[in-house]
């Protein structure tokens, strides 16, 4: 029992350490980033952006982020209403302005690419594999417990999107494994 008691004391001691500013939950923070990305992105004039009354954010319903993203539903962005859509089929993909992909989408990535086929879609992912494969914006945790993002300029041009220089300035490489010290 001594070992257990020591462990409890250790836990208490660690809990009592000054924590600083209260950290925020990962998924909610990622959703807030997505919200910002949408604000700083311009779609080409021939995209469904002009004809659609809503700005469609697509995500798979099984994504751990789906709940956090759904909280963005109905928000106004530059006069449009943001509609979070749990995509039902690939045919519906051209209606997406924003597509969030996570690790679960890996096996169907080839199919998704085919159905995107150069469409003006802002693809965002938090999965290192998918980011490496090429999405417009990659989101990831950095070593200092902060969130960072990187903009893939080539993917951005292919999707004919314009992303504000403010966002580009804050972009930093995140696709390295996070366990590696940043020196």
């Amino acid at each position, binding site marked *: 029992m001594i070992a*257990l008691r020591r462990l409890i004391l250790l836990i208490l001691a660690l809990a009592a350490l000054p924590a600083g500013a209260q*950290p925020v939950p990962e998924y*909610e923070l990622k*959703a807030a980033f997505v919200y*910002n990305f949408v604000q700083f992105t311009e779609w080409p004039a021939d995209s469904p952006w002009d004809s659609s009354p809503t700005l469609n954010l697509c995500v798979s*319903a099984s994504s751990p982020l789906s709940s956090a993203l759904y909280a963005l539903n109905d928000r106004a962005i530059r006069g449009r209403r943001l509609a979070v859509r749990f995509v039902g*089929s690939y045919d519906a993909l051209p209606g997406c302005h924003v597509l969030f992909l996570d690790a679960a989408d890996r096996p169907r990535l080839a199919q998704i690419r085919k159905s995107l086929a150069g469409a003006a879609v802002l693809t965002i992912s938090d999965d290192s594999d998918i980011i490496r494969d090429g999405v417009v914006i990659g989101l990831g945790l950095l070593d200092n*417990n902060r969130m960072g993002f990187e903009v893939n300029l080539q993917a951005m041009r292919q999707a004919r999107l314009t992303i504000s220089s403010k*966002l580009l300035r804050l972009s930093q490489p995140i696709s390295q494994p996070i*366990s590696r010290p940043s020196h």
Partner: protein
Amino acid sequence: MDETFRRPAHRRRMAFAPRLLMPMCLVLTLSAWGGETETLRMADLTGLPIERLLDLEVYGASRFAQKMSEAPSAVSVVTAEDIKLFGYRTLADILRSMRGLYVTYDRNYSYLGVRGFGRAGDYNTRVLLLVDGYRVNDNIYDQAPIGAEFGLDVDLIDRVEFVPGPGSSLYGANAFFGVINVVTKRGADVHGMQVAAEAGSAYRRAGRVTYGRRGDDGAELLLSASGLDEDGRDRYFPEFDTPANNDGVARKLDYDRKHSLFARFSRAGATLALAHSERKKGVPTASFNQVFNDPRSLTIDRQTFLDARLDRALDMTEQLSGRLYLGRYDFRGDYVVNYPPPTLNRDLSRGRWWGAELKLVSTRFRGHKLVLGAEYQRDARRDQANFDVEPRNTLLDDRRKGRKYGLYVQDEYSVTADLLLNLGVRHDDDSTTGSATNPRLGLIYRLTPATSVKALYGTAYRSPNAYELYYAIPGPGGSKANPDLKPERIRSGELVLEHHFRPDLRLTASLFRNKVTNLISFTTDPNDGLFVYRNLNEATARGGELELEILWSNGAKLRTGYSRQSARDAAGSPLVNSPRHLAKLNLALPLAGDSLRAGLELQHVGRRNTRAGTTPAYTVANVTLLSARLAPGLELSASVYNLFDKAYADPGSEEHVQDRLVQDGRALRLKLIYSF
């Protein structure tokens, strides 16, 4: 500790649950208090400028090693990084670093103990071993090979997950105490040629050549061949210390040889994997009443599998996976029995099977993740033979076939953003032992952004295997069949708490209770002295686990845990090979940035009962130094296992004369990996 032991049994059992509940309540209180100060929720976050968002500290759920399995359980994960840093040589090394697990080695095979159940000699039939989803347990012994007998080089492992608790609701038979999920590396992880060479104590030599690549079209290829040759040391067994038995020394009989091949190709959702391995082990223990120190005692395990998988997205919400597999397992055991005269007796087992699985994952209904599956397996051969080699005398020639199928459904239902319900059930039917239905129920509730609670309940089963049912040879050290064996069953309940004290500090606490009925046990019939398997009433294990993980910004990492369990049979006596206490510590330390790192490991296993007495508690320390950038592409690691040369022993099993089997003292290993 003695104080606890003197208490009457009922008191003892009551006593420790509150002791573990106390810290759990404490943590709950702390986290509830933390929840009030948690004010930055969604509304606030989207209102912040992006520069502020970049500056916010985050509870990174994905920062800690994430489980990929669908089980609602407190999963332990060991990654490729850990395998390198802690110098793990076998899957057994990996597993013994995990919460609640311990490994027993009888100098032939390694056996996994889970939460107080460590059935030495059970060939790990009560854990299911999956490699990329393929079921490795063979169809004769249902053996989950975890020592050198495991066919995959650990260098090819990307991650190992251990899912404790009953998994029959998803995987059917053998997912009894838990499921070991091995995920292999992909071509992109190796990227080019890689050559590894190692040398170690007991004349250990091992090597590996691997080629990996990823094409522009996303196709990936991995090819690898490995070899191991360990001469082993001469082993002294006091039980055999007579002049006629070479004074108890088994000479040159602890050798371990293996070669293995692995190939995998994947393209556009289709994967083809082929694995083959052969392991030959000298048996120095004279198990099964053999003549001591006879150089002919050995076992050979040969395993081959071909696994073809196709994952297809039907649309954005539905994914269909199909799998076709072919498995082969051959065993040869050479035993020297003194009839008299001393005679070479041989076991030959041949297992051949093929099967298919179809699985649909659907997220069509909002908030639900549905998994529907069907599995069919045909056992073309489950043959066991035994004969004396010279003069030839057949003692057993048993040929069996069989088939089994399983149907399962699971729903992961997000009731609210913070409440997840996991319901699953699977029905299995086996041509030999009949049918079984096993449910699982899981509830995961996020109390605060930093705290979640899981409550789990489930059952699992294991059918008696061909060996337990049909193996029979007459004579001393012989066995008899028991075709009347029934499946054994487990009923399990667990409460898990996960709490982040800080984004880089996580605590996992759990309380569990496992009750096994109809336990199939290896025993000796007192009437004829023959080994036989019997359904021996029941056993119950209960206990608790605490684990703490801390990450530092310089790359240092600590994982430490303590578990306490008590496993008893129906009469209330503690089970054999069941430690009350287990403690683990794994510390990863960067010494010179990325170029030099150290992995320190401490493992404590409490006192265990043996058949006749006890083995004392012990603590073993292992240290590895890893230099990643010695030269471009060159990586060197040096490991010392059992650093302080601690003398310790594992309990022997029914087939051993030895009540305790002494384990290895200090051992060294040097390993070089060159990538080009």
